């Protein structure tokens, strides 16, 4: 891969590049959750909704691990941004503990 491509943002919200992600993988951080915590990829506004799968694929390719092993196990409420005033809505109470 050309070196320029390594500067491509994999997580746009937090501006994390392919290079940073590959470096973290090579240091032994080999799940999406590990990568998120060491690079902040997936911690921004969209909470990894766009980059989680891409990061999982990069890890799987680089380590030979199956996708299921590197993907996060569960998703927690809120799955998308919610205004604080959401507590005033009836439906809020129907959201699930996680």
């Amino acid at each position: 891969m050309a070196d320029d491509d390594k500067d491509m943002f994999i997580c746009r919200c937090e501006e994390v590049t392919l290079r940073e992600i590959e470096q973290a993988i090579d240091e032994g951080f080999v799940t999406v959750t590990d990568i998120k915590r060491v690079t902040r990829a997936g911690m921004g506004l969209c909470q990894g909704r766009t980059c989680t799968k891409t990061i999982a694929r990069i890890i799987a390719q680089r380590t030979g691990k199956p996708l299921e092993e590197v993907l996060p196990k569960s998703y927690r409420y809120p799955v998308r941004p919610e205004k604080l005033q959401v507590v005033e809505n009836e439906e809020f109470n129907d959201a699930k503990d996680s």
Partner: protein
Amino acid sequence: MTHAADVLVIGGGIIGLSCGFYLTKRGKRVCVLDSGGFADGASGACDDMILFQSKKPGINLELTFESLELYKSLRAEVDDNLGFANLGGMVLIENQQELEIMEEFVSQQRSYGLDVEVIDKREIHKKQPFLSDHIIASTYSKMDSQIDPFAVMRAFERKGSSYGMKVFRRNGVVGIERIGNGDYLVSTQDGTVFQAPIVVNAAGTWAGQIGEMVGANVPITPKRGQIIITERVPPIGETNLWSAKYLVTKLRNDVVVDLNEDERSMGLSFAFTRSGGDTYLVGSTREYVGFDKGTTIGGIRAIINQTLKYLPRLRDVNFIRAIAGLRPSTPDGRMLLGEHAGIDGFFTAAGHEGDGIALAPITGTLLAAMVCRDPGDHRLDELSPNRFANL
């Protein structure tokens, strides 16, 4: 397969990594063993404060000053700011009774050398224009600082590894056995065995389970804290914020603070801190629910309602995530740090409750000094795990 080392550190949270880092710098060959991924414990689900104001004069406050200095040298050594910031903090006071208790507390802290004062409504408004009008006074200390726990942990690991430290993850410790020459054999889930003359129990909330493996009493219980995280927003005020409620109940258990039944049972108290990523971490709860790391709708609702009471204009701000962590809490609010009597070579460094981020570098430094048999520091006697040996 057996790995030999000088020291085995069990638990790779911020405390275990700090112990590993400072031991490695003292020339020890160290393996750090963790059952989870990076920052799976409390160190990955907490606020980032190096908080002075919450502490009574005494050992925890003293060690926080020393830790702040060590964080300075660590940042220089790794050539990274590690998300350090010094925004100062305010503890919000809502009625006359809280004011009296906090005034007395502040004067104790001042005589101990902490730079803290009580400020009036006008001063408050200058520092925090969005704050609700019902706040009658506040404390202010410019000492309160913060540092990014993820960055700190990665720095300990990176720099430590460059000196030879080894970290093993996703492979929990399942048993500890002692052999003829006094060495410990530590076995892990996948069957790998680690051997060393020294074992450090740094398993945070889970340290009691590790203690049991060698017959040591380590009375640490999980105290869950939930937090929500906002989207990126411009600064809401100049400082970080807390409510006096939790402190007041800690200082005076006869005082009943103004909380409803639900809020009281989950130990709700306000903490509002700006993180390096320009988001706010807003919390939190203190719940006794065993080892359950889940977030709850009840907890999130209580945190939001509380936030809107103090900062009503935040209604339109989005929150993007909710997290929960287990604070390792001890019966007397102090960590366990030292070697267990009668179990030579077995040390515990755990039980930091709500101060493990603040106290990480000093804990690792002191632990390394103990393992290397430096001359004893008598201030630390009150942290000895042996205070619980006969309980």
